């Protein structure tokens, strides 16, 4: 069996295992063989039905990236908001409602959804290359946008410990609190903290990309 034949057969093996086939350089005859393999493969039993998990994950991704709508976000009552203390009071002052209540107080991430909000452009997408983040201020909200490559997310830039405004530490790829030794990663999670008690992650802001700009839903 020659090398070309081996490569075509490997390509077919990938196809039959529903894997992404590797790159291949082939002659015209091989392209015809590949086409025949695709035709055979896709006419098999149960072919062409999308996996429900894929359908749901793409729906969520579309909600996040093109529309900025958060699926299934539950709004908290005003009483619950006040009951949840300091952070909630700070966000209420900024005109935001807490979308999901903290459970157990630490690892869960909240989502801030303003009532009667509007989209405000906070940065040009080209100004935030993959792997970087940028602080912004809309007047009502101080936050940062981070480009994670496949998605762009926005978070509050207010430390969840004492409410101090975080500072960008681009070299270390994190946000530092000027008030004590606390730092957050670009995905809002706590990197290290000054106190021993658990500290909530930074609340995520509803964001989207529109006409080349990163927009945040705010009041």
């Amino acid at each position, binding site marked *: 069996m020659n090398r070309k034949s081996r490569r075509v057969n490997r390509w077919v093996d990938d196809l039959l295992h529903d894997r992404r086939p590797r790159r291949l350089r082939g002659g015209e005859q091989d392209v015809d063989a590949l086409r025949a393999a695709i*035709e055979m493969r896709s006419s098999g039993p149960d072919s062409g039905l999308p996996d429900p998990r894929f359908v749901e994950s793409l729906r969520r991704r*579309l909600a996040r990236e093109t529309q900025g709508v958060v699926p299934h976000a539950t709004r908290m009552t005003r009483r619950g908001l006040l009951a949840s203390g300091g952070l909630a009071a700070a966000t209420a002052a900024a005109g935001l409602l807490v979308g999901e209540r903290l459970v157990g107080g630490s690892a869960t991430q909240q989502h801030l959804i303003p009532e009667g909000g509007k989209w405000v*452009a906070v940065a040009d997408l080209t100004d935030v290359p993959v792997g970087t983040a940028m602080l912004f201020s809309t007047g009502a909200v101080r936050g940062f946008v981070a480009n994670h490559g496949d998605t762009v997310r926005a978070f509050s830039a207010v430390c969840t410990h004492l409410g101090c405004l975080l500072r960008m530490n681009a070299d270390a790829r994190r946000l530092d609190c000027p008030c004590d030794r606390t730092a957050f990663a670009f995905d809002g999670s706590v990197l290290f903290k000054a106190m021993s008690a658990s500290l909530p992650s930074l609340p995520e802001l509803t964001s989207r990309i529109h006409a080349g700009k990163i927009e945040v839903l705010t009041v």
Partner: protein
Amino acid sequence: MYVDSAVRPGGSDHVLELISGERPLDWERVYHDNIASIYRLMYYKVGNREDAEDLTSQIFLDALPRLRPSASKGEIHMYLVATSRTVLAEHWRRRLGVQVTSIDENLLSTQEDAPSSDQRPRIRRILSQLPANYRRVLELRFLERCSVAETAATMGISAANARVVQHRALRRAAEVGQELS
């Protein structure tokens, strides 16, 4: 570095004006109506789940922000198929440098669900015109989903031989398929 939208001339106000000027697109409905047919179309063109999922994601991410809320169901479907055509061409250009499969331009002018016809009768016809060992190897591998080892055992040949027969059978099947269409 702070970027304050309030001091950006024009920028954000302009965007907001465009959004509030039109009824927003019911993208959930568009997605729900089209996800199965677009995925199926891509699956038929690439033959594996991973690529089909990647390309389907790209199509919706590209097309949804560009759809007018006032577009009809048919127009939306046609726009998605047109986007699929471009995305598929780019996929093959990147992957192999050759357009292995493409989306028929005729699909763009019809509103029917693509691909509309069942491929199985065509596959049966192709198989029926192949020499017996070629037909057998393709049936075992593609329709019965046997491994190379299982196929070789069933046919009473070595695994290496089964691979050679499979490659030749695919080439011959491609020729027969072209003669049929």
